[in-house]
């Protein structure tokens, strides 16, 4: 009964989406307030209906209702409750349901918090949202029904892939989708603006918080996925330039560009057409990611649900959504031409270069990701594009960007003083050079590569440059605290986010350049030395029972300079259902580096294959990502974005910015 209720709610949501996608548009065209208001009611109704449907599927999972095919395929009675709950989105059908749930959540949020939006803009944006929702609800109902029943119902299910039974991965998809789907807001507002033919500072101010929220969630989602790969897959790496990783990284790059170009629209009323295009592209790249992941057109180390029929459906959605919006852009963008004057050396100039670099980076990742597919289709042979390509093309784009990131905030709007800014940054450069040399020497000097010093220089340049800019801002006038409080939160947010990236860069450089690894067969009692640590394999317990797995658990005693540091327990697990082995690395972190130990198969002579790594600064990658998100959240709390605040500013700006 409950699965059918969930299914029915989804069908009703489809009809609501149909109404919401059409009538408010007509209302906005005719100026009919009643029809326009249908959009809000529709957004609430859709959210409630889809939440009901999602709740129904959760119920099936939690109660282990094995009459539902999806539960049989992905769950098991002995699975811990957390993974029963997260198992809902650990498969194609359920994750699509989560996708539309989040889409409807954003819609409802606009209906709730968008009280001060111009009614026509709100109606149109919500209508566009409903169109997206309509497409995906059709997709779920026609190709991926999560509520299909099986008869007779089996006694238990197949279980969830043990690699996914991990707290990090349980929450990785919801955040990722909050990001992907969140960019639909910027998209809907962009389409609404194209229909109205008006983009102004007020529009940018309405779009930016939604983009920022989506960006924060996506950053967190990507970082969680990367962290999960780092600690569960047992290969000591955290990024592989795999198509599925790239699928999440491209919208992130485009979204980051969008965040920055929206500032230019808001402050200088320039880059309007470009910002609209970015809003379309960012969401399109999210959709493209969905298509690549669900259709199986690319080969990836991630397991795909490769189903050409579903692929065709998502491709149609992508073609309608992106093709339609790009056509609209081509037709309507001329209306948006023009805008403020643009001096090359100014804040907006720096942001423009930032946009060029970020979007080139996104384009490069797109090319690298799709190149094997293009070669395959054109019969140029099978090939794969891997880390060497991405590292070679990505670095030359990122180096100037980071150099500029510290400089940009020192430039003023309209006309910047480059000499003055560079003069103030001289001190930062000196500190960065010292940090680079110190870091390089500390890490062992010439035993590490020279480029690592350059990497640390870059990171220190960004960190200290951001700090200096912040220090100048809050110290300029008397009274530090008052000044700090009066500074817009968005400015604090920028400093924090830029700092975060600096920390990430240091982490990437450190863990790539100065990583030590040791792979050897170890017998119980044997000891090894690694990066100043002394590790003794005390023994291996071949039979440790976990909640739903058996494990082989090794015990390593770690000491440093004769002093005991810790005891580490890497495991090799065999899950009960499905019967698959996983490795569980043991990680000991001191925040400056990770000691990372993996135990492998027993060797014929009674030893065990052990892989031991020391990854200097690796924790900074994830820590830095956390700081990035924090920066975004602080910026999001800026009073400009708060409910009610945009209204006052908006009226004046809208009057000023009316176009053509």
């Amino acid at each position, binding site marked *: 009964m409950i699965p059918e209720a969930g299914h029915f709610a989804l069908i009703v949501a489809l009809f609501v989406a149909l109404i919401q996608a059409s009538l408010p548009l007509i209302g906005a065209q005719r100026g009919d307030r009643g029809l326009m208001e249908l959009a809000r009611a529709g957004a609430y109704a859709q959210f409630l209906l889809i939440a009901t449907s999602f709740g129904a599927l959760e119920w099936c999972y939690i109660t282990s209702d094995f009459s539902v095919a999806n539960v049989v395929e992905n769950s098991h009675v002995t699975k811990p409750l957390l993974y029963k709950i997260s198992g809902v989105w650990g498969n194609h059908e359920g994750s699509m349901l989560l996708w539309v749930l989040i889409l409807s959540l954003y819609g409802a949020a606009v209906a709730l918090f968008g009280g001060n939006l111009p009614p026509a803009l709100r109606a149109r944006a919500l209508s566009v949202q409903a169109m997206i929702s309509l497409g995906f609800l059709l997709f779920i109902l026609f190709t991926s029904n999560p509520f299909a029943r099986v008869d007779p119902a089996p006694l238990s299910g197949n279980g969830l892939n043990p690699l996914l039974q991990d707290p990090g991965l349980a929450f990785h998809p919801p955040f990722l989708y909050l990001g992907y789907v969140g960019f639909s807001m910027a998209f809907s507002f962009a389409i609404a603006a194209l229909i109205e033919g008006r983009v102004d500072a007020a529009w940018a101010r309405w779009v930016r918080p939604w983009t920022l929220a989506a960006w924060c969630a996506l950053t967190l989602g990507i970082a969680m996925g990367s962290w999960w790969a780092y600690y569960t897959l047992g290969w000591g790496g955290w990024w592989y330039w795999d198509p599925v990783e790239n699928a999440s990284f491209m919208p992130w790059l485009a979204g980051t560009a969008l965040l920055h170009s929206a500032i230019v629209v808001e402050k200088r009323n320039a880059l309007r057409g470009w910002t609209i295009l970015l809003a379309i592209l960012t969401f399109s790249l999210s959709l493209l990611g969905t298509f690549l992941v669900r259709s*199986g057109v690319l080969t990836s180390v991630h397991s795909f649900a490769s189903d*050409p029929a579903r*692929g065709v459906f998502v491709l149609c959605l992508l073609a309608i959504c992106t093709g339609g919006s790009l056509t609209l852009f081509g037709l309507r*963008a001329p209306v948006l031409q023009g805008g403020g004057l643009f001096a090359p050396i100014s804040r907006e100039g720096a942001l423009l270069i930032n946009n060029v670099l970020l979007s080139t980076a996104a384009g490069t990742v797109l090319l690298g990701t799709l190149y094997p597919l293009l070669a395959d289709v054109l019969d140029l042979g099978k090939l794969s594009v891997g880390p060497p390509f991405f590292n070679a093309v990505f670095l030359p784009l990122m180096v100037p960007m980071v150099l500029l990131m510290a400089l940009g905030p020192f430039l003023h709007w309209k006309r910047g003083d480059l000499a003055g800014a560079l003069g103030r940054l001289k001190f930062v450069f000196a500190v960065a050079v010292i940090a680079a040399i110190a870091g390089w020497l500390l890490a062992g000097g010439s035993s590490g590569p020279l480029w690592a010093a350059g990497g640390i220089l870059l990171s220190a340049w960004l960190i200290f440059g951001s700090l200096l800019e912040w220090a100048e801002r809050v110290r300029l006038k008397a009274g530090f605290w008052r000044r700090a409080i009066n500074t817009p939160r968005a400015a604090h947010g920028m400093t924090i986010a830029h700092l975060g990236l600096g920390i990430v860069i240091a982490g990437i450089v450190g863990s790539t350049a100065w990583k030590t690894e040791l792979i050897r067969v170890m017998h119980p009692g044997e000891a090894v030395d690694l990066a100043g640590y002394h590790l003794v394999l005390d023994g291996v317990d071949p039979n440790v029972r976990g909640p739903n797995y058996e494990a082989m658990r090794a015990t390593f005693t770690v000491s440093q300079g004769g002093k005991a540091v810790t005891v580490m327990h890497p495991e090799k697990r065999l899950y009960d259902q499905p019967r698959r082995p996983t490795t569980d690395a043991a990680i000991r972190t001191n925040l400056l580096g990770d000691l990372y130990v993996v135990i492998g198969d027993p060797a014929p002579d009674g030893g065990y294959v052990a892989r031991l790594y020391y990854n200097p600064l690796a924790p900074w990658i994830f820590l830095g990502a956390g700081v990035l998100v924090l920066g975004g959240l602080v910026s999001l709390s800026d009073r400009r974005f708060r409910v009610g605040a945009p209204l006052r500013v908006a009226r004046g700006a809208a009057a000023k910015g009316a176009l053509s």
Partner: protein
Amino acid sequence: MKRTLFLPLAIFVVLCGAFLGQILRMTRGEMPNDIPTVMIDRDAPAFDLPSPVADRPGADIAALKGKVVLVNFFASWCVPCRSEHRLLSTLSDKVELVGLVYRDSPEATRRYLEQLGNPYGAIGMVEADSRTAIDFGLTGVPESYLIDRQGHIRYAWKRPFTAEEIAGKLLPLVKELSR
């Protein structure tokens, strides 16, 4: 109307064409993760492997020269091989069928062939270090390679045979090469 504003659309249309092309290939069974073997049109690796059974000779490539040969890698522990076996039995009168036993014992192979019948004209145990399998570039079992009269590999099939594959591709090719 400015044409450059339609540039993103044009790029997108091209991409969609590529995606559609790839999906069409997939519906024809050409999966993107199928890597074609590089062995096509090269000399077949040399092998001379002992037979596990008394009533068939071992597999010796020199003895097969001048014949069209289908080399089939299999093992008794391999479940897909079992399912393929019935189809192989229909081939023994159409092509010189050579079985190469991968990572298995002679006893297990004998039991397997007694149970399911022996369609192979010659049969050889692959070395303990899998030398021959590595030379062929074997990725798993079952896998089959068609060798022409000059000793070149002309065709490879890296999964269990299906009736359609045999009727549609393998047999026409055997016919052409036997002419």
